[in-house]
């Protein structure tokens, strides 16, 4: 059974807020291995990861390696705790390309702790942020798998019904939905931390969009937990309590004071993106 201590530790470990931002030229790098020629057939994917057709050419490998290197530099300077977290939990990333998947994608599996698949990371125009999201996303899954292995599952893994994720819009199993709550919390923490040191407007704009999307999903989590079809009894109570705390605070963390202004004025402030930098401090209340 997951204890309150374990549940609270999730919030602490998935907070990437760092009061000091390290804009240095120090070399930042990931320690996990890149496997461009995987022999492993990954379960539950739309393509065969071991197929030669799923491999990048030598030139293209350099391009993907450079993207991953850029992620390490961005994380190392703007969110060093996230860099450390990924290095602590990711061992090997299988790097693949496939026409069977639309755009960039990533995957983890409970039976393959420490490993993930990154697919088509060359594709997006904002590939560094997309790859950063994928790497932290999958590293959080590794961390959660290990926590469950050591301290007990967060929910009943045999629960067969699926539920619609308020983030992806896909119907996913209960255990994936519970993981998603922590994954998106960690990503919100990352975006808000990176926003504190974002230099260019377009960089801040991308972070604002990503943070807003995460907050949007969290604003419907409490409704989902309270809904008649949600199997609340199948989830550990302390995990429910922690998710409820995140969902209570995260959606309103960026809101401006509406006592004196119209929504039109508030929407302009939201559009500016200045609130994303303040978000990191607001999120601290969740773990307090």
């Amino acid at each position, binding site marked *: 059974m997951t204890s309150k201590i374990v549940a609270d530790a999730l919030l602490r470990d998935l907070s990437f807020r760092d009061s000091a931002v390290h804009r240095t030229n120090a070399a930042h790098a990931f320690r996990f291995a890149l496997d461009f020629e995987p022999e492993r057939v990954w379960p539950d994917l739309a393509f065969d990861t071991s197929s030669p057709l799923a491999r990048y050419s030598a030139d293209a490998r350099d391009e993907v390696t450079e993207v991953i290197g850029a992620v390490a530099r961005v994380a190392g300077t703007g969110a060093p705790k996230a860099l450390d977290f990924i290095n602590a939990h990711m061992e090997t990333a299988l790097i693949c390309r496939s026409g069977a998947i639309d755009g960039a994608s990533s995957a983890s599996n409970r039976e393959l702790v420490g490993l993930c698949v990154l697919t088509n990371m060359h594709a997006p125009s904002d590939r560094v942020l997309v790859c950063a999201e994928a790497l932290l996303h999958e590293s959080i899954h590794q961390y959660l798998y290990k926590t469950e292995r050591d301290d007990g599952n967060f929910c009943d893994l045999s629960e067969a019904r699926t539920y619609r994720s308020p983030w992806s819009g896909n119907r996913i199993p209960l255990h994936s939905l519970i993981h998603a709550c922590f994954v998106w919390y960690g990503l919100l923490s990352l975006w808000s931390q990176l926003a504190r040191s974002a230099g260019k407007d377009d960089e801040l704009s991308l972070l604002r969009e990503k943070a*807003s999307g995460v907050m*949007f999903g969290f604003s*419907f989590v409490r409704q989902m937990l309270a809904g008649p079809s949600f199997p609340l009894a199948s989830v550990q109570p302390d995990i429910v309590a922690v998710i409820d705390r995140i969902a209570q605070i995260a959606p309103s963390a960026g809101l401006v004071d509406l*006592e004196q202004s*119209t*929504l*039109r004025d508030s*929407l302009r402030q939201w559009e500016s993106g200045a609130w994303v930098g303040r978000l990191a401090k607001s999120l601290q209340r969740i773990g307090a």
Partner: protein
Amino acid sequence: MTRPEPPNLILLLYTDRADAVTSVLLEQGQRLRCEVLAMSLSQLINEAIVGRTWKWAERTIDPSHTAVVNRLLSVEGEAAPFRSSVQRQQFWIWLAGALQGFAYVSSMPSAISPLGSFGSLVDQWSDLPELVSGLRVPNHRAGGSTAELRGDVYVVDPWHLYNLGRRAAIEPGSGEWHGHLAYVRPAGRLFHVAQVGNTIIVPNAPPGMRQEQRDHIVSFTRSMSVLSPNRILEHAFFEGNEVPVFYSTCPIPVVTGRLPGYADLVVTGLQDDIENCSRRSAARS
């Protein structure tokens, strides 16, 4: 113990005057026992001050004594006053939080719709039979696969709640049906049930509808009244061989809203539902 007073104001939030519920409240709102104040999405965004109490048109609106009829059908498209997806998302987040402070809300926004909903046909056919005892839904397969389905097989986009799709005329496995839902069309004609709270009408009921079939509909709507955060719904059923077979439920009365009796349903059903909600709140406090 003091008994909470029922709401003394109905605040209609709307985007489309042609929506049947909006139309009834705009034109016949005086039939309700308390005042109806109508506020368009544009007025909500550009004119109202929406803090702990709302201020608009020289009025102060106390959410704790106000019932909201949420008819914000959509916040997408050119008519919506949002410059970006971030503005739309932040408004939607705000709306979901703000409506929780009202004494009564006809429908809470969901992640799928600002009007709330039970999702696609896939969601409805998966979730509702778990919640409503005895509810029958069409035999179906996700992904548009017609394999293992026998009978009058149709393929439909599961997000098109008002479309029965078309008869499957191609071999299973064709990419044409990616993202679609294949189902066996139940027997009999389609009919609709309009529901506001506990009150229902079945304006296009099949002529030969048996008492057993009527009882099934009443039982379903009672269950929905207990479990649904959406108080205003329109359900579609196939007549079926024994009991009606559920097809979909939607918070917009596309069919019944045009039929006789709908205005009376909205007035009576809404009045009762607001008062019942107030009584339930009193019992809890």
